[in-house]
């Protein structure tokens, strides 16, 4: 850093002091098809460097220990050969977990922060805990299971495309702007932690929603919904979908699907695929 930059303090906070992968070998323990990485003293880039290098060595199961807020986990893994890697994250995944994720599986044994599955393309993220804001933002494919609650703007601008239909299943409840701008995909909000008679508290659910569907277990007032969504009962096809994903949810988190499925679900659908078609003067 030259004097000028010292004076004005240009600091590359992501890359400054990042070590080369070869300097980090002591953090990786390989055992057959499995590798363990101790993230305790690793930087964001370092952990992804190691994951990538490990995956390149044909190791398909990577366990990350002592993760605490490390970002972008799984992002740099390519999926060119269609081979996917399973990553188990212990403790606490950082922001943008699995951003642009392409086909890989990530399990988080703990909570996750903002931006889980941001712009994810395919694969699966299972969070054994809660997720913070903008979970599954702009997600295009794959599945995300959150055992507990999600923060603000979950499933915002979720999309779908051809055979890619993203799925987000949330065991708990959500905060405001749930499903905002949603353009596709399936979101299931189970509200398992709501007490008897307790409503979901999120406001502005599905504002600007113009595609996809939200299945909601538990109650909401009309005033909690964006004006672009309507409530419909589930038809048989819906029930099958809900059943399928609730069962998957339950298999991830060891709970009983029967009880969940016995309760009443609501389907939230956009009332128009063109919510803003008429606001312009031509």
């Amino acid at each position, binding site marked *: 850093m030259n004097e000028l930059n010292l*004076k004005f303090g240009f600091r590359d906070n992501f890359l400054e002091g990042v070590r080369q992968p070869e300097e980090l070998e002591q953090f990786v323990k390989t055992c057959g098809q499995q590798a363990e990485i101790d993230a305790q003293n690793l930087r964001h880039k370092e952990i992804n460097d190691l994951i990538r290098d490990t995956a390149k060595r044909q190791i398909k199961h990577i366990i990350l220990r002592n993760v605490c807020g490390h970002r972008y986990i799984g992002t740099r893994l390519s999926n060119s050969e269609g081979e996917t890697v399973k990553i188990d994250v212990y403790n606490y995944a950082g922001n943008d977990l699995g951003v642009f994720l392409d086909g890989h599986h990530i399990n988080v044994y703990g909570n996750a922060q903002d931006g889980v599955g941001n712009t994810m393309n395919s694969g699966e993220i299972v969070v054994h805990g809660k997720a913070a804001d903008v979970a599954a933002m702009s997600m295009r494919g794959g599945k995300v299971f959150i055992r*507990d609650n999600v*923060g*603000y703007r979950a499933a915002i601008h979720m999309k779908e495309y051809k055979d890619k239909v993203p799925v987000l299943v949330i065991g708990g409840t959500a905060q405001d702007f749930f499903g905002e701008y949603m353009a596709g995909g399936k979101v299931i909000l189970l509200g398992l932690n709501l007490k008897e008679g307790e409503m979901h508290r999120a406001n502005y659910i599905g504002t600007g929603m113009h595609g996809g569907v939200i299945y909601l277990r538990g109650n909401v007032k009309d*005033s909690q919904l964006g004006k672009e969504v309507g409530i419909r009962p589930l038809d048989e096809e819906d029930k099958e979908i809900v059943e399928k994903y609730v069962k998957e949810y339950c298999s991830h988190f060891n709970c009983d699907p029967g009880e969940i499925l016995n309760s009443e679900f609501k389907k939230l659908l956009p009332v128009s695929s063109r919510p803003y078609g008429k606001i312009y003067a031509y």
Partner: protein
Amino acid sequence: MIDNRKIESERFLPDKDIENCGLFGVMNTSGTRFGGEMAINAIKNMKVRGNGLGGGFAIYGLYPQYKDYYALHVMYENKNDEAKKNAEQFLHENFYVVYDEEIPTNPEVDVFCPPLVWRYFITPHKKEINGVSEDEYVISRVMDMNKYMQDVYVFSSGKDMGVFKGVGFPEEIADYFMLDKLYEGHIWTVHSRFPTNTPGWWGGAHPFSILDWTVVHNGEISSYGTNRRFLELHNFYCTLYTDTEVMAYAVDLLMRRQKLPIEVVSKIFAPPMWNSIKYMKEREKQLYTTLRMVYAPLLMNGPFTVVIANQEEMIGLTDRIRLRPITAGAKDDFVFLSSEEGAIRYVCPDLELAWTPPGGEPVVARLNSKDHLKSLNKSV
């Protein structure tokens, strides 16, 4: 750079700072004092939220031996002795200075252009008060110093508390002031700054303080001009052009002067939408309608998360649509507030509770209370 800041009042506002950051606060609600390790490590964990252009700490329960005196942390920029002389003369003229010393620093730590930082424990000369409360007296003098004195800037002026801040990553500032070695407190708040403006000025770092109120802040208040002009009506002059300063003055105005509880103040800063008010019960509806009518200029618009603290309380609050993150956590008597949950877990792996309050809903940690759990019920 400071000279430009000493503008009295302007018809046109110069650019204000825009800064976005990582923040963290930890409080022991039983009042037990503890060292800086948690705060320092937590903010270090969120290093990428800052860019090394500012870091700072506020510590409460800092000077038990001088807790009846206002503790002034004063920075002399460019290590300007002349400024120090002027300032000390001013202090002696206006206060009784019981003790003063240079705040010890670690010369091994390489920080950018460190100023001279001195602390004074003072109390007003009784005769000079003239019906003005001690607090007001102190504030006005501190403001005068900040406004008119070249190369002088008061970091903090509360009792039994202090602010340490500067240019660098917060852990560097902590190292520089040796916070982990020298100090204990029952509240630590810390801020890692990512400004897009005013690099290289120690006064620009957070926390910002007025008396014993401190604010660390993440976000950009789009209503800055409106808020600031309202505060000017109440004789708060903003010299720093930061959102944080506005926030601190607003807290001071509403809580100290006007004695409103934080539960109400938070609803002034981050009121519910008219659309929500419409569906409220009559009493609530009246309350919020009135609050919004009267305190409209203090609506803090745009993204923010703040951690506000005083001797008794540590408060976390976000804007009403929660554009900035906050996570609260608790274990035993400890209450944590943080931009990222990871940071809390990093310093408290066996955390009992972690929750994210909804936008505009304050998390209030109070001495000898469990008030912080109130927000837990409204949160997820």
